[in-house]
């Protein structure tokens, strides 16, 4: 983990204790109900942004279920992430149209620029890189999206300047 990041004080942000307290309350509320684990994980990810092992341990202990069950569910659903999420999420379309028109090259180039793998987050927590199927811009493939903004007919060489917008 990047220490500078975690030490940085931010008065508008809740402390970890506050976050854990919130999650504990939700656990008390859902405990014993059908499908409660998924609900709780969903909520916890909403608060922390991701589900690190310590957080999974906390949930396992409070629910009195094995950690392997919690991590089994977390790793089963691609929605859950055990990695911290970046401020911005880049999604590269690998749907048929985009794939055919060089989507793969865009992924490779982004991996190179950001120095991370698909699914990971950059050291400075700026970007998380993901791939997805068709984002509905097939006519202007290849496409990527950053947060809610869609970029069409992306040229791998243009990527650097697109990313600049987010610094």
């Amino acid at each position: 983990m990047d220490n500078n990041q975690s030490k940085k004080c931010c008065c508008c942000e809740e402390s970890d204790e506050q976050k854990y307290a919130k999650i504990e309350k939700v656990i008390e509320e859902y405990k014993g109900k059908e499908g409660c684990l998924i609900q709780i994980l969903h909520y916890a990810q909403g608060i922390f942004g991701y589900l690190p092992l310590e957080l999974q341990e906390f949930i396992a202990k409070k629910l009195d279920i094995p950690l392997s069950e919690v991590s089994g569910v977390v790793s089963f659903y691609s929605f859950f992430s055990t990695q911290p999420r970046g401020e911005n999420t880049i999604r590269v379309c690998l749907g048929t149209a985009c794939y055919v028109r060089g989507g793969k090259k865009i992924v490779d180039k982004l991996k190179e620029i950001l120095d991370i793998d698909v699914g990971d987050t950059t050291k400075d927590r700026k970007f998380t890189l993901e791939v997805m199927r068709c984002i509905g811009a097939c006519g202007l493939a290849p496409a990527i999206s950053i947060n809610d903004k869609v970029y069409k007919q992306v040229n791998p060489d243009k990527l650097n300047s697109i990313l600049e917008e987010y610094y």
Partner: protein
Amino acid sequence: MINLTINNKKVQAKEGMTILEAAKENNIIIPQLCYLEGVHQIGSCRICVVEVEGARTLQSSCMVKVREGMVVRTNTKKVREARKVIYELMLSDHPRNCLNCARSHDCEFQKLGELLQIEDFRFEGERSKTYIDDSSPSIVRDTSKCILCRRCVTVCNEIQGIGVMNAQNRGFKTVIGPPEDLPLNSVNCSNCGQCVMVCPVGALQEKSAVDKVWDALYDGKKRVVIQTAPAIRAALGEEFDYEPGNLVTGKMVQALRDIGFDDVFDTNFAADLTIMEEGTEFLTRVTDALKLKKETKLPMITSCSPGWIKYVEHAFPEKLGHLSTCKSPHMMLGALAKSFYADKVGVKPEDVYVVSVMPCTAKKYEITRPEMNSTGYPDVDAVLTTRELARMIKDAGIDFKTLGDSEFDNPLGLSTGAADIFATTGGVMEAALRTVYEIVTGREIPFDNLHVTPIVGFEKIKEAEVLIENPLPEYGFLDGVNVKVAVTSGLSGAKKLMEEIANGTSPYHFIEVMGCPGGCISGGGQPRPTNNYVREKRLQAIYKEDENKTIRKSHENPFIKKIYEDYLEKPLGHKSHKYLHTHYTKRGIFNEHLKDK
């Protein structure tokens, strides 16, 4: 009774049976793979498919219950083809290097391939990424061999109540293992080996010590001492095609001599010693609590089962004071072999090499505990499971069935019937009560044939009460006290009893816990299969061994009396503390109490 037709045969089955069970009952075998009677019945492999008239798709016969008038076919073209394809798809992601797999002789997956007459590899596809985790001193996981049957998951979760492993990831990337691929030695695994016992393939195995032991035997400087746990004699025969329940004590000892061990001792001797130490410890605690009104921890809990110990260190780190401080018997014997016995034969402790044959994988881990070195050297150097010993005997070219009988060496070889029953659930408690009751009252325990029947058998949690009347003057304070004991085997039962202790509601004075369901006779290192039938047979054999002995109470063992006179002085004495007792480590479920987590 339900009437149904299987393969044009009109048959009857009990209500609630599955098709697979009903077929078996009527001598129709349906190939199966993940199903394990009484243990794992969640239908994860689909090998057992059959056609059921009226059903659109093939049905997993181990899951579907029989219904009145049901028409089942187990051998149609469709069924046979489906079965084969399911198998071949599994095979396409299997390493297929059977020649160097230790399960080759009894691999259930390989046997099924034979049955289905698989001749070539039709499907070649992507192979999943796999790894070998040999971080644990007890168990090696090789995920490449895993066929995802999930028996281990069921056993660890349901029977042991721990849940170290579960399915991680999804689809093609599914791995059965601990969270986030954490190494097994870093999580709350008890090392009980119950998962190893049920794994149908070579994905879960004990970490072999066979090579190490051969090396010690070839090392001219070493005096190699071997000891065997009580449960081995009742099970080893199965590895040589004896029916379960055959006692092979004499042949086993002879085989060990023939392999070349210098001394063949009996862990039973140390079991008798355990009763002396643990019984005295129990009486001390009871005296402290009832007579001296001193702060003390009751119930006291037995400590012979290292898987149980590790479990409690993880799950109830605040309750370790309830554990007896006795080492497990084979550790006691190891410590004595390197001190008392080494002295006696004039060998330096570092030149004594102690091997224990155990029904247990957790003992492999136990010998690595840093505190187990009372002479400055490890109390025990290597642990072989029953299965590993069988492999060594075969490898040594010994024709087991033709061997004559031999006897254990003394002074660490003679034992009483009380020691034999250490092998089974309820046995340690019964052995302890035989001695403790007699110490307190001067009379034999008032049970038929010395068997404390309420705690005999395979029920998960058993209880007994022993009323103390007319004790000897020294124990006058116990007059009229009803001593309450509980016995459990398998860790999910232990969890329940520990929760009572944690809540302050435990009514007991003394509890026996064995980590494996049924006790050491069904330990994780015993011959496969270990099912209810086999368990029962081994149990009977153990009680028979006990009843055949002339001396059946630990305190009457003449060599025990002698070792106290000559060496140890008295139970709980200074030397006992040094060699026979130990302490425990707070771990926590996630090892949060260990500094270097």
